[in-house]
């Protein structure tokens, strides 16, 4: 007769038999978590921004950007397209364009259509054709 150890109604032998499966399951979960840690590449350009009005409210937002290379030299003749998305999926994004007002200085406008958290995406095309994406969080837009 096979003797099984029961603790609190739990069959420990059975648990041991199946532990390999649950160990495998746990390993997959842990590896998935470790394996997909996010890393962001270091920026090759320096972007500074100023957004008005402060605090930001629903309506037009003026965006002033400066672009410089790693040596702090202004980057002229870049094309910067603006896209603002809500943090929640399913909301219509808004778009805008910028124009260069001085070497390395760009200005544009987007119209924020509702309150909440927005993310401003900068789709940048550098003079050499290289494309760069950056995002700026616009949290807590007031109604």
């Amino acid at each position, binding site marked *: 007769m096979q003797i099984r150890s029961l603790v609190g109604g739990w069959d420990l032998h059975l648990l041991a038999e199946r532990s390999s499966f649950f160990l495998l399951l746990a390993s997959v979960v842990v590896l*998935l978590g470790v394996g997909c840690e996010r890393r962001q590449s270091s920026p090759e350009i320096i972007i500074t921004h100023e957004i008005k009005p402060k605090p930001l409210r629903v309506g037009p937002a003026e965006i002033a950007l400066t672009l410089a290379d790693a040596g702090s030299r202004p980057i002229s003749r870049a094309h910067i397209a603006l*896209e603002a998305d809500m943090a*929640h*999926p399913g909301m*219509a994004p808004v778009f805008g364009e910028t124009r260069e007002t001085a070497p390395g200085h760009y200005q544009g406008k987007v119209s924020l259509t509702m309150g*909440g*958290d927005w*993310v401003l995406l900068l789709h940048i095309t550098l003079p050499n054709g290289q494309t760069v994406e950056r995002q700026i969080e616009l949290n807590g837009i007031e109604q």
Partner: protein
Amino acid sequence: MSTELHAPHLELEEVHEFDLLRVRGISKLLHWRHARTVLQIPLLFVSLVMVLDGLFGPRLAPKNMATTFTWLHFRGLLVLVILGAGNFFCLACPFMLVRNIARRLYQPRWNWPRKLRNKWLSIVLFVAVLFVYELFHLWSSPWWTAWLIVGYFAAILVVDGLFKHASFCKFVCPLGQFNFAASLLSPLEIRVRDQAVCHSCDTKDCIRGRREPKSDLVVIQRGCELALFQPLKAGNMDCTFCLDCVQACPHDNVGIRSRMPASELMTDPARSGIGLFSRRKDLAALMIVFTFGALVNAFGMVSPIYVVERWLSALMHVTQRAPVLGVIFVFFLIVEPFVLLGGAAWMTRIFGGSRRPLVPTAVRYSYALAPLGFGMWLAHYGFHFFTGLLTFIPVTQSAVARLGRNLLGNPLWTWTGIPVRFVQPIELGFIGLGFAGSLLLTHRLAEDDCAQHPMRAFIPWAAVCLLICLASVWLMYQPMEMRATFMMS
């Protein structure tokens, strides 16, 4: 010895019923042994793609399949399919496919603990999901949405790896409980066609499963894993539409049949695998969480919550969101139902002359709130679904483009969905429909409960329904302000 079988649902007149399993083509498909698997495979594939995109794709929620598909399309389709047909998402549940594969490798030996054979654990998990959704703003995080899906797969493998039958579905799955509660309002139900056939059936394969003729121990087709014995089953509670009973019945006597939505809430028969609704406090609590949870979930999306949160954080002298949100949840899910339902039950006894004690009265009538709750879920999830209907196109285009081939063209990010001005009347319609359903049910219960003064018993519950309805409409017209940040000032 033959068992007397009394169909609990025969009190309602049934004429010219539609039966989905009599529709040519559909019938053949759903009677096929692998029908469920075929329906599950596409959803499993989509789930895996969502997990991968959530973990490795864009971090911005509107650009990611995990968040877009989960919080817009899946939730919206789920409630609309339940409203229009039945609990077909449980039928096609991809988690169960993985579980079934795992069960080919090993078989669980334990029965689910007797003390947990109720809905309390799943109610706690349901509330926990709502709480975590608000606290960690799951809608804005592809990463955490992907982990939620992975966690679900892991949970079902652990629970159903240890415990027999469909323990996860019946006693644990919060999403399943949502579906069970919502499907009380569905127009379709899995039900026997002819009670006389069941009466003369000796094998009871619908519950026992079909056995190998030479060996009674070998099951070649499962019976109901949720302990719903077809002849005594009434309504959709606990039914996952898995079709095991349909495929096990040797007499082809189980159909997917039409009925009046919510009709099962008008009567209180002893239901197979469930018992009497009027004695199930856990099920009544599920209805309360289902109804008031709909309000909390919508409240978390509109501007006034930030005013309330700021006020509470100042009052409590805390800067973390969790305790503030905890107070809001306790108020909405415990204090408010306690006051409203307790007050209405008390008035039903005092003015209506009901002989039921206070708590059973509140339990009995709480089921009547389900239509209102479902109306609010429909309005909320329907809003996101309709206004973001087309977003699956650019999100999919973008995902394909990230694989290195722009096969579907440039993402059409301006494609969103139906304008809000057209969706709002639909929302109002859902809430109005729920309100009408709840009024009808409470009136019917009042007639049964207080035959002499039904209106006196009805009015307090009608007032509760009206309050919930007005709160739902008020919420619907609040400006949305979906913040993932806790603003202290």
